[in-house]
């Protein structure tokens, strides 16, 4: 038997070396955080702050000695927002770079494309993308930090209901975020007693949406809801003003950034949208449990890169949830890390307070969203 166990031991060492690389045999190899982000292309406004956030915090954690004595190492690639690219990249992360955990996927499309790879290879993934499809139905190895588009739609309809709005004109883009948001709006509206009286679309590269809005003007809508991101919503706001439409306008969390205010200018006055608290960190009461985390993140990010965006915040949440889970797991065993991510409770992030469970791989509720209104070119809280 002695011979057998010696052979077994030899094999297991060999297996370790082969499957985990020689690093694992030594105690403190770096922890590899993999990431695939849309740092170029139409969704680069997501990927860019996400990458900056990951880089900044990994540097900071390493400066403080890392996690359990392991340094963190970021391995990232640009997907340009393309699903095929994301797929190849995640294979690369899993097979070539052999990362321990993946934080990323700026867009829902890129995340959905890679789910079966991480499921099959059993690597925990914390996505930074919005769609509810990512976590519903629950996938064992997939988590996410941003609020879902369904939550955004619910928050908006809740606010409309309070204002007595019953007929809504919907205008959305043709991207994944837009279309997914549109589907959630159409599905959710009846539950709030809201009728969608117009359902117009534009292409995200369009330069003018007056034709769609002219059609909307001819309906009896009481409000306009635009689900989109990038420059198109700013053009929509300007076109609404140009056509002299006086209806209340709602935007989605897709435009929750200073950039939107800058681009839309005066035309954004009075628009409402649901957003993470990060956007209004300054005006939150000190009693807010998120205030400290938010101000901390905001000041660090702005000191280094300029105006903060909520998207970078999602990356902060994702990274920190992963790091804390690794810390708690006390191991680089992927299954243990996964279990610990699922046990995340009361984690105060920029997006809200996360309470994950085996049935909820996001762990946020509607309270994580704040309803904001633009007044005098500034975000204000609606209450």
């Amino acid at each position: 038997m002695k011979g057998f166990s010696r052979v077994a031991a030899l094999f297991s060492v060999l297996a370790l070396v082969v499957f985990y690389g020689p690093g694992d045999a030594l105690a403190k190899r770096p922890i590899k955080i993999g990431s695939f982000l849309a740092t170029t292309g139409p969704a680069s406004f997501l990927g860019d702050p996400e990458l900056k956030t990951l880089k900044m915090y990994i540097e900071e954690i390493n400066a403080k000695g890392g996690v359990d004595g392991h340094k963190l190492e970021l391995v990232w690639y640009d997907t340009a927002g393309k699903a095929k690219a994301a797929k190849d990249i995640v294979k690369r992360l899993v097979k070539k770079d052999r990362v321990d955990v993946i934080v990323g996927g700026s867009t829902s499309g890129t995340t959905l494309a890679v789910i079966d790879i991480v499921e099959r290879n059993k690597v925990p993934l914390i996505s930074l993308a919005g769609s509810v499809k990512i976590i519903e139905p629950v996938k064992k190895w997939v988590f996410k930090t941003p609020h879902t588009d369904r939550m955004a739609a619910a928050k908006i309809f809740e606010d409309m209901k309070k204002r007595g709005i019953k007929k809504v004109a919907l205008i959305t883009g043709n991207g994944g975020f837009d279309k997914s948001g549109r589907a959630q709006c159409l599905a959710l509206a009846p539950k709030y007693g809201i009728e969608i009286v117009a359902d117009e679309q534009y292409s995200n590269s369009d330069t003018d949406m007056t034709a769609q809005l002219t059609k909307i003007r001819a309906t009896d809508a009481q409000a306009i809801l635009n689900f989109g991101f990038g420059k198109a919503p700013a053009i929509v706001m300007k076109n609404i003003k140009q056509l002299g439409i006086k209806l209340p306008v709602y935007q989605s969390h897709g435009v929750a950034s200073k950039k939107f205010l800058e681009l839309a200018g005066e035309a954004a006055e009075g628009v409402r949208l649901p957003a993470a608290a990060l956007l209004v960190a300054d005006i939150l009461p000190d009693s807010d449990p998120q205030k400290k985390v938010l101000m901390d993140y905001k000041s660090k990010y702005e000191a280094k890169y300029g105006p903060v965006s909520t998207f970078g915040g999602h990356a902060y949440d994702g990274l920190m949830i992963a790091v804390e889970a690794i810390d708690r797991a006390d191991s680089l065993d992927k299954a243990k890390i996964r279990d610990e991510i699922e046990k995340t409770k009361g984690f105060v992030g920029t997006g809200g307070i996360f309470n994950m469970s085996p049935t909820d791989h996001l762990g946020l509720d509607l309270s994580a969203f704040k309803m904001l209104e633009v007044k005098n070119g500034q975000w204000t809280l609606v209450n």
Partner: protein
Amino acid sequence: MRRLSGFFGLAAVLAALPFLFPDNYYVTVVGTTAMIHVILAVALNLFMGYAGQISLGHAAFFGIGAYASAVLTTRYGLNPWLALGAGLVATYLVSLAISRPILRLKGHYLAMATLGFGIIVHIFLVQADTVTGGPDGLSGIPPMSLGPVVLDTDMEWYWTMGGLMLATILFSLNLSVSRMGRALFAIHGSEVAAQTMGIDTPKVKSQVFIISALITSLTGSLFAHQQSFVSPDSFGFFFSVELVTMVVLGGMGSTFGAVVGAVLLSFLPEFLTVFEDYEVMIYGAILMSIMIFLPSGLFVAVAGFASRRLAAGRERRRC
């Protein structure tokens, strides 16, 4: 068999790579992607390089095949091979329907028309979301089986795509020294003269267009199963342009030119990722430089140079 020496050389390299570099990312993952690109580029080269036409819409046929397989297997539980067949039938009907009117056009007008066709198909993939899953695409496409083997791992796909690639290359090489191949070159050289030699040019052009589309669609179906996921951005205008670039970069009209162009454009981005923000700029600069300094294409220029240097017989331009 001198005519096919390049082909056998490539087959040998293909067979050796997995053993020289076992479980290597560049061989299995990027390599398989490159082989898919090679098939598509060789198929497009039949239409572009051989017949001298242009298509900025070939990604659409790739998409029709991929989506036929994706939709029919995930939503209707159809057998993958039946779905693949359905994709081919759909592609045949579509390409047949558009080939005659579109192929009356020439040059830039043909480019515009094929581009328009490609964009229409792409918009349909994005907009018909109840069927196609919209921009998020369709996931969970079941693996397909080849006889008793379920095609699942990267290595299995490597061999499958490798086989199809070699078959496509052989198809193209054989065609180039056959009656219809010469008819295609004739149309490229002078459509008028080809007609007066008795070549039914509208029919031949339409046939090669359909054949090219069918190979592309077939590859699309396999691609869907290999990826187990499809989304519209793999089938857009940019991919069509990339395919054309592969063909021209390697050398129009040369089968191995298409191979070289496709391999180059598949691996280049992998190596450029280290340049991060400079990647896009460098990629553009490389494309430009190749075309400026080797306007007849990478492979054609190098092969021509080599044959002149070695004076080893007469290197055929399309071997």
